[in-house]
C-alpha cells in the first residue's frame, strides 16, 4: 500500500526553481512528490512552463511564474496569482539567491548590489508577502529559506554573499518569533557544495584540480543533490516539522565543521 502523501491539499511556492539543475527545482520536485501543488518561480522565464508541466506529470497542480524577487510589485503579483489560481498559499520555499566572488578590498558597489537586492531584500519581500497572506488565511504556514553553509562558515572570497547568508539567522529568528502566534514556522536550510547550476565552474575562478580538492574537503566526499535539499524542506513543511521554528539545518556533508578533513 503506497504511503499517504504528507503535503496533499497544500499549496507551495518555490522561488529560484526554473533551472532543471537548481536547488529550487529539487525542492519543487520533493514537495510535489509529497502531494503539494507547486508554483515554480524564476527570474529567468526559460523552462518555467516545462518545469510546471513536469510537476503536473507528478499528479499535482502547478504554475510557472516569472518574477524577480527583488521587485516587490512582481512578488506581490505572484502571490496574488497563486492564491487566485490555486486557492491558498501554505508553504513558501524562499530559495532564490545569487552569488559572486571578490575579496573585501576589491568589493565594488556593482558586486554588492545584486547580493543585497536578491539575497536580503528579495527574501524580505517574498516572506512578507507570504506571511501577510498566511495570517489572513488563518490556517498557519511554513516558510523555509535557503541560506547556505556560508550562514555558519564564511569564506574570504565571498564576504558579502556570506554576510547575506549569515544574516538569515537574524531574519529567520525574528520572523519565527513574530509569526509563531499565527502557527507559521520559519526555518532555513544551509546547502553546502551542491551539484547545481549555481556552482558550475565560474570561468577563471577555479581549476578542475581546485574543484576536486574542494570535493575532497567535504567529509562525506561528495557534493549534495538538489533533491536532498528538497527533502529537508519537506520535513519542515510536513507535520513532522510542526514544532520546529527558528532553526537552521546545515546540508553539507560535514563541510561546515571541517577546517581539515581526512
Amino acid at each position, binding site marked *: 500500500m503506497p504511503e499517504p502523501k504528507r503535503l496533499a491539499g497544500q499549496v507551495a511556492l518555490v522561488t529560484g526553481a526554473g533551472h532543471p539543475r537548481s536547488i529550487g527545482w529539487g525542492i519543487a520536485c520533493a514537495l510535489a512528490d509529497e502531494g503539494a501543488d507547486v508554483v515554480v518561480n524564476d527570474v529567468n522565464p526559460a523552462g518555467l512552463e516545462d518545469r510546471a508541466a513536469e510537476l503536473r506529470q507528478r499528479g499535482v497542480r502547478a504554475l510557472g511564474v516569472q518574477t524577480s524577487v527583488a521587485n516587490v510589485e512582481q512578488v506581490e503579483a505572484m502571490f496574488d496569482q497563486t492564491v487566485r489560481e490555486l486557492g491558498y498559499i501554505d508553504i513558501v520555499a524562499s530559495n532564490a539567491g545569487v552569488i559572486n566572488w571578490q575579496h573585501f578590498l576589491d568589493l565594488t558597489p556593482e558586486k554588492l548590489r545584486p547580493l543585497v537586492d536578491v539575497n536580503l531584500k528579495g527574501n524580505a519581500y517574498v516572506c512578507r508577502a507570504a506571511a501577510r497572506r498566511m495570517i489572513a488565511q488563518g490556517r498557519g504556514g511554513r516558510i523555509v529559506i535557503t541560506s547556505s553553509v556560508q550562514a555558519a562558515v564564511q569564506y574570504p572570497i565571498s*564576504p558579502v554573499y556570506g554576510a547575506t547568508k549569515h544574516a538569515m539567522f537574524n531574519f529567520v529568528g525574528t520572523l519565527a518569533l513574530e509569526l509563531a502566534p499565527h502557527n507559521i514556522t520559519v526555518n532555513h536550510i544551509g546547502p553546502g557544495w551542491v551539484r547545481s547550476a549555481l556552482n558550475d565552474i565560474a570561468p577563471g575562478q577555479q581549476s578542475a584540480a581546485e574543484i576536486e580538492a574542494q570535493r575532497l574537503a567535504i567529509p562525506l566526499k561528495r557534493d549534495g543533490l538538489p533533491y536532498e535539499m528538497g527533502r529537508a524542506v519537506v520535513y519542515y513543511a510536513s507535520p513532522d516539522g510542526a514544532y520546529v521554528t527558528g532553526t537552521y539545518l546545515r546540508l553539507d556533508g560535514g563541510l561546515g565543521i571541517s577546517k581539515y578533513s581526512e
Partner: protein
Amino acid sequence: MTSLTGKTALIIGGLHPLATGVAQSLTQAGAQVIVAQTSININLDDAAVLQAQIAALPPIDIAIISPSNFSIKPFVETTDADWDAALTGNFERSVWAAQAVARTWVAQNRPGSIIFLSWVAGQMPHVNMSALGTSLGALRALAKMAAVDLGLHDITLNVIESGWADLEAFEPYLHDAGREQIKVGTPTLRLVQPAEVGALCCFLASARSITGQCLTIDGGYALTPGSGSTPFMPEHI
C-alpha cells in the same frame, strides 16, 4: 585605561550618545578624535567619493564605524523603504567606510584598527527588529571575512555588540515598564554605560592579535532566555 597617546581616531556613524561616550574615552586615553558627523564632511553613499575623502584626511590609526538606522516595526508592517534604510544605514555604509579606511592604510603601509560599533540585535533575534537584526547580522559576518583579508596588512577589524544603553534610538522601549523588563532580563540589572563601551574600544584599538571577533558588552543580556509569554513592547506599538 589603555594609552592611545599619539593615535588619531575617526568616528563615523550613529548610535548617539554611545559614539559620544566612545569619543570621550578615546580622548581620555590620549587619542586625538575626529568625529565625522561634526568635524568633516564625508559621503557614505558613494564608495568612490568616500575613498577620496578618507585618503585626504590626516593619518588615522583607529576607525570606529557605527550603524545609523534603528528601524523598530513588526515584520509584516515593514516597508520597502524600511529595508532600504536599514541595509543602507547599517550594512552598506559600514562596508564602504571600512573599505575606504583599509585601502588608505594599505596604500600608506600603515597598520590600524577598525571597530564596528554595533548592537546585540546582530546576534539575537528581537521581535519587531527584522530589518535591524538582519542588517547587523550581515555586518558581523562580513567583518570576520574582511578581517581575514586585512590581517596580512596588520589591520585588525572587530565588532562590538553593545546591549541596552540610554540611547535616543531606543527611547520607545525605555518607558518605565520597558526599563524594568530590560533590567530584569540583564544579569547585571542595569543598562550599559557609554564609558564602558569606550573602554572596550580603547582596548581593541591596541590589541594587535585580536581580529575578526564579535565582543558582546551587554551585562549578560544575550545569555538569558526571555521571561514570560509577552515580550516587552515599545509604547507606540
